[in-house]
Every structure is written in structure tokens, then in C-alpha cells.
């Protein structure tokens, strides 16, 4: 009989190596959480790595003891008559393995609390690609069934199922929902927040560079949920300004009819409007 975890260890190795291989090539495209593209995602990524390192230490420690016990104390024909001693416990050893987890939890808890508090503030970006740090842009995100509506109150623009943002600038997403709850998630830029009816939740995100990132809903909301995806296009400040200007000149106004249409359940392709209130 083989010890019961040897194959598991093999599996571990294979998966770990393939993970390294994946991080080497094309991580950005395939593993957005592990290749953060902005300060919010990056601070979350560091915590993920730190917690992972702590946990690996525990895994290795336990696995060593585990395999030692399984191999050393297995029943063999030679030790058939061996009568194991009745051991009640050992307070020294028991204290050691109470204290070690406490230390690990503390080592994890301190940065956790710090980052948790940081993330409710606008990200202080080190990678400011724009020369001028303007006031953050506010974008209202409304999850309808099953589409994402983005309103730019400052720019008087509304987009559906895609959102354009300037790179290097903190964006204040204000999330709400007209129907069931959804969760707004752009893994490359940072963790998610819920879009809930009658509640405005705030999510700060920022992209370092121009680029296009996938976003989706992470909270089940019915039939069209799997298709509730959107694109985040990060562009330079100049490109963004140009887009705003062009949209205001060429895009249609949001009509009452279209607005009603959007509120009905269903899937739509990306849309752009040059007003945020229906007329």
C-alpha cells in the first residue's frame, strides 16, 4: 500500500510547474488576476501572493509530518506484536502548534486590515502616465437585466456594455442595479463590488496603461447572466478627450424609447449615447 498522498504530491508538482510556465508566457491575456494592470489590482495581487506564501509554508510543514507518520508507523508484518503506547497528549507540543498558527494569522491580518482600509480611498498611483492629475472621473454603473449601462455625469455620455476610461487616473465607479444584484468585476484592474438595487456602492479602479480588459458580472442574476460581459478600454487622456468630444457631436441622444428598451430583460450589443437622461 502506497502512502495515500504521494500521487497528490505529484499532481501538485505538475500543476505548480504548469502555473510557472503560464506565468512566463501570456499571463496578461489568460490570468488577469495574477497580472494586475492597475494599482488596485496590484495591491490585491500582493496580498494574494503573501497569503499564498504563508499557506505554502503550512502545507509543506504538515506534509512533511504527515508522510513521516504514514511511512514510519505503518503496520508491517515485523511489528505485528508491537503495542503502541497510550499517550494522553503533550502540552509543550500542543502549545507550539497553537502558537504557530496564531503567528501566521497575525502576519496575515496586519497587511489585510491595512489594504482593506486603503482600498476605500482613491488609489495613489505610482505609475502616473498622465502629467496632470485631475479630479477623479465618476462613472455611474447600472446593471440592468442583462446588460451594463455606464453613465458619465461629467461628460453627459452613456454607454452600454463597454466603458472607456483614461489611463493613469482613478475612476470612481458608482454601482447600482435596477433589477437583481450583480457584481461588477474587471479582474485585470481590481476586485469586484456588488451592484445592488437602491444602493450606491463605490469601487475605485485605475488602469496603468492603455489597453482593453474583460469585465463581467460575477453574481448570478438569471437567464442572460453568462453573457453579461463588457469591455473596459483604457486610453490616453488625449484619446479619451477626443472620444468624449466626438461622442457628443456624433452619437444619438438617449430617447425614451431606447431607455425603455434597455430596461426590458434581454441582451444587446454595445451602444453609445450623447445624453444620460432620456427625453
Amino acid at each position, binding site marked *: 500500500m502506497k502512502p495515500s498522498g504521494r500521487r497528490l504530491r505529484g499532481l501538485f508538482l505538475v500543476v505548480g510547474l504548469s502555473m510557472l510556465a503560464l506565468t512566463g508566457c501570456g499571463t496578461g491575456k489568460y490570468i488577469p488576476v495574477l497580472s494586475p494592470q492597475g494599482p488596485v489590482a496590484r495591491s490585491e495581487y500582493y496580498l494574494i501572493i503573501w497569503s499564498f506564501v504563508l*499557506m505554502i509554508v503550512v502545507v509543506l510543514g504538515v506534509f512533511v509530518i504527515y508522510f513521516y507518520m504514514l511511512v514510519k*508507523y505503518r503496520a508491517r508484518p515485523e511489528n505485528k506484536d508491537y503495542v503502541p503506547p497510550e*499517550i494522553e497528549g503533550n502540552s509543550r507540543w500542543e502549545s507550539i502548534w497553537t502558537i504557530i498558527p496564531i503567528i501566521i494569522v497575525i502576519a496575515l491580518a496586519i497587511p489585510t486590515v491595512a489594504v482593506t482600509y486603503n482600498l476605500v480611498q482613491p488609489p495613489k498611483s505610482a505609475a502616473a502616465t498622465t502629467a496632470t492629475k485631475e479630479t477623479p472621473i465618476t462613472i455611474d454603473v447600472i446593471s440592468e*437585466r442583462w446588460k451594463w449601462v455606464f453613465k458619465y455625469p461629467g461628460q453627459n455620455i452613456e454607454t452600454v456594455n463597454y466603458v472607456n476610461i483614461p489611463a493613469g487616473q482613478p475612476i470612481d465607479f458608482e454601482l447600482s442595479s435596477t*433589477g437583481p444584484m450583480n457584481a461588477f*468585476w474587471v479582474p485585470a484592474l481590481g476586485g*469586484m463590488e456588488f451592484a445592488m438595487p437602491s444602493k450606491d456602492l463605490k469601487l475605485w479602479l485605475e488602469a496603468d496603461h492603455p489597453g482593453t480588459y474583460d469585465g463581467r458580472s460575477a453574481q448570478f442574476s*438569471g437567464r442572460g447572466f453568462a453573457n453579461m460581459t463588457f469591455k473596459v478600454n483604457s486610453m490616453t487622456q488625449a484619446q479619451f478627450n477626443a472620444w468624449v468630444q466626438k461622442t457628443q457631436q456624433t452619437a444619438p441622444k438617449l430617447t425614451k424609447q431606447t431607455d425603455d428598451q434597455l430596461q426590458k430583460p434581454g441582451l444587446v450589443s454595445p451602444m453609445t449615447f450623447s445624453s444620460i437622461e432620456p427625453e
Partner: protein
Amino acid sequence: MLDEGPLIWMSDALITLATIGIIVVLTYFKLWKWLWDNWLTTVDHKKIGIMYLIAAILMLFRGGTDGMLMRAQLSWPNLHFLNADHYDQVFTTHGTVMILFMAMPAIIGFFNVAVPLQIGCRDVAFPYLNAISFWLFFAAAMLFNLSFVVGGSPDGGWTSYTPYVENMFDPGPGENYFIVSLQITGIGTIATGINFMITILRMRAPGMTLMRMPMFTWSVLITSFIIVFAFPVLTAALGLLLIDRDFGAHFFTVSGGGMPMQYVNLFWIWGHPEVYIVILPAFGIFSEVISTFAHKRLFGYAAMVVSMASIAILSFIVWVHHFFTMGAGPGVNSFFGVSTMAIAIPTGVKVFNWLFTMHKGRIEYTSAMLWALGFIPNFLIGGLTGVMLAVPPADYQYHNSYFLVSHFHYVLIGGTVFGVFAGLYYWWPKMFGVLLNERLGKWHFWTFMIGFNVCFFPMYFLGFMGMTRRVYTYPAGYGWGVINLIESIGAIGMGVGFLIMVYNIVWSARFGERDTTGDPWDARTLEWATTSPAPEYNFARIPEIKGRDAWWLMKRNGESINGPKDIPFEPIHMPNNSGRPIIMSLFFFIAGAGFIFSWWILTIIGLLGVLVTLAQRSFEYDDHHYIPVEEIERTESAAGRL
């Protein structure tokens, strides 16, 4: 029903055929009376335990089939094996069945099989109530499974978050099935909690102090407390939701001034302790199995008890970790993050105590032991990813992703399901007097264990790759396809493992080695002191307990379970069988159907039936009998214990 498509028609046909088949077989072999007298009306905890376990295995099949359907649909991008609606129903029933109609009856089955025997008593505190608990669970499970073919299954996920599950977004009876059947099984579960709490606190054999109780009994006692405190919260949440849906109230609808978040809070105030309700008894089983097959007493008994108790308390103050991403503010998120991490401390203590139980032991790799040993690395992975999830900023990236899906399958399968399998192999001889086949048991273990890791380990990466739970399909180009395919292959491995177990059960029933000793494992606790299976009265004479691992001590001192030879037996007082629990649960079923379809006449008939059966009990005076001394002597001498 007609527009449901071939999958549902096929299951309709299969269910009808299976039902007809069962009725024909029972009638042909004239088994109805036997079934009624011996099983359907029984109040014997051992038989009730067996019925719970059979039901749990059936539900494991059902929930597993759901899982296979999901894996089939997801195994490649853009598949159209299931449509969105069917997929939504399938993942909802998968989660609900696995947690409430598989894990719960399985662990409660072991409560019944082992606890009264372990504490040296003849029955649970309230045998009649125990039968009611079982039949309520059974009626609820049948009602829930009916949804698949009548009116459509619930499709809001096993958590059924409002406002999605309110009538305006999710009309039809499907969601009512979820609410009503959970409500019915919940009543039975609360009764079980009270029953075992009282049984353990009041009915232990003389000399069995709390600190001499077997570890499984300790885990059941603590679990019973969690049940009694947690389940009423679920009852309240579901009750309010049912009032919303059936009578147009607005507890959880925003349009009427309600608060959907309130449901989420209530659900998880129950839901988090619930995961400990199904894991702590598994911890108890592992403790028994590891110390039995390492042939050593459990290391650090007191620390094990203290850590279980602290896990139980902590389980009530961590529920917000299920919704860190719902805008609770950094103070709240930090508190619940750290309180969740703190659970790792007592859990770590337990893991090291199990490891050191094997230190200087002589480890026998039986099937039961393999499941207990397989549990340690798998649960470790599940538990440590749980700690990673407890970091709120990291959770913003994991929440509702496949990282989470993997985590809870590692704890629930690697913990609870492995525990159930360990318990089955361990207590099977005690339940049926036959040992399960060890060879097949090892095949079962390895196929299932490898399949399980192949199925769920890659999900951590899918989470990092941005895949969220509950998507019924995904486009090509994300790189998710191959990984999903590998997972589906792993799922097939688990399915094969399950089938080997079923084959093992059938094979062993016919050819299995009989246990004539009552103690096939050279075990330590009292349930192994009596015959396999135990007689109706468990112990001819209530044993005197002189220490922890009572049976081990008696064996070492050469004592008999029946005490010194010259003291005569006394007649034993036992409760009578009763058909009323099953009839009462039938009325609950009828009332439940009424609530589900808003057919109020049916509801009233059902509820009246419940009241009448309750009232009848109050006027029942002849509810017990005595087993005469001659019969005890006959049974004991047939077992060679005189």
C-alpha cells in the same frame, strides 16, 4: 412540461419506471407488511440511522448526476447540451441537494447509528420525535426532487439571494419548492438537534463523564448546539421569503421598501454555521477512525474538545465573509476577515493532534483509514484556501469565482464526503453485521480521490483566469476550455468511484465477510462492545464506565459487556413502533405542495392533518412495551455473550 426537452422527458420516464418497478417488486415478493412493520414505522434509532444513510446515498447519486450534467455542459466553450434555464436549475438543485439532502441526512444518520451505542444507552431521548425528524426530512427531499418533473426546479442558486428570487424576477413554483422543502426538513433538523443534545447530556451510561465521551459523541453534542442556534434563523428567513412570494409582502423587495441585504444576512447567519454542522461530525468520525487504526488513544483529547467548541462559537461571528464585496465598509470587513482567519487556529490544533495520534502507532491502511488519511491533505488545501479567501481585498478577486467553487468543494468533499465514506466503511459491520469488501473499498478510494483532485484543483486557476460560478457557457478565447475538459474527466473519475462503492455494497450484502465478533477492528469505544448488528435494546445491561475509550479498557481488564455472570437481567422498557410519523409527514408533504402552488385547500387539508396527528399522540397512553428477561437471555446466548 411538454416543452422541457428530451432530457427532462427521459428523467420523467426513468422516474416513473423506477417507481413502478419498486411497487411491483414489493408487491410480488409480498414485502409491504415487512417494510411497514420493520422499517416505515420503526422508532429504533439504528434503523432510522440506516434509512437516513440510504436516503443520503440516493441523494448523492442525484446531486452527483446534477454535477455531471454541469461538467458536461462546461467541458468545452459554446456547448449547447443544456440551455441557460436548465443549467440554472441544475446548479441550484446540485447545491441544495448536496448540502441539505445529502450531507445533512448522512451525518444525522451517523448520529443515530453511533451515538446511543457510544454512550451506552438504549435509545435516543425522544425516539418517536426521532422518527418524525426522519420522515420530515424524507418528505422534504421527495418534495424537492419532484420539482424536477412538476412545475420546474428552483433556479436561484442554493443561496437563493433576493431580490432575484422574488416573484417579479423569478415567477413560477420553482423557487417555492426550495423554500418549502427546506422549511420542512428544517423542522426535523431542529428536532434532531434537541433530541441529541438531551440524549447526550442526560442518557450517558453511569460513569461516562463528559470528558470520557468518545470524540464522535462530543462532535455530535457540539453540532447539536449549533443546529439549535442556527436553524431557527433559516426558518425565519425562509418564512419571510415565502410570505413575500405567496402573499405579496415586501420584506426583501426594494420596490415595497424591503431590504434584500437582510435576506443575505439571515441566510449566512445560518449558512456559515451550517458548514460546521456538516464538518464537525466528520471531524468526530476521523478522530474515531484514526485512533482505532493507529491503535492508539486520541492525542490531545481535551484540546480536541476545546478546539471544536471554539470553532462552533467562531462559526457564528464570521458570516459576513460571504459578502465582503457588498459594501460593508473596511471596519466590518476587517473584523470578519480576521475572525474568519482565527478559525484556522483551532482547526490547525486538530490537524496536528490527528497527526500525532499516529505518532508511535501501528497504522493499518483499511478503507476507512484511507478516507481519514485522504481527508488530511485535501482538507488542508480547502482550509488554507479558505484562509486566503478570508483576506477581504483578495476576496474581492476571488468572490464568486471558480477559486471559491474549488475551495468549498475541497472542504465539503474532502471533509464531509470523505467523512461519510470513512464512517460507512467503519460502521458498516455494526449496522449490517457484514464487512464491506476492502479491495473494492481501495478501488473506490483511489478512483474517487484522484478524480476529485483532477476535477477541483484546476478550478483555482480558472478563478484566477476570471471564470465565475454559475455561467452556463463561455466563449472560446479565454483559455478556459482545456482546463474545463480536464475537470470533467476528473468528474467522471468520481462517478466511477461512486459506482464502485455501490457495487461494493451490493457485493458485500451477498458475499461479504460476516462480523461475528461485534468488534472487527479491535476498536476502542462502546458501540463495538455489543453484537453486530446490535440487538433492539443495544445493551442487555447498561455498562459501567471506568474511563475514556471504555471498551478498550474493558477488553484490557477482561471484563464482559454483560457484567458479572450471577446478576440476573431485568425486563427492558422500549418504545412502541408507530405509523404516525410517516403519516404526519405525508400531511406535511400535502401542505407543502399547497404552499408551493398556492392551492390553499390542499394547504388547509395538509395542516389539519398535521394537527390531528399531533393531537392523537396526546391521547396515546399505550406507547411502550417491555422485553421479557427470557427473550434477552435467548438473544444474548445466541450471540454467545452469556
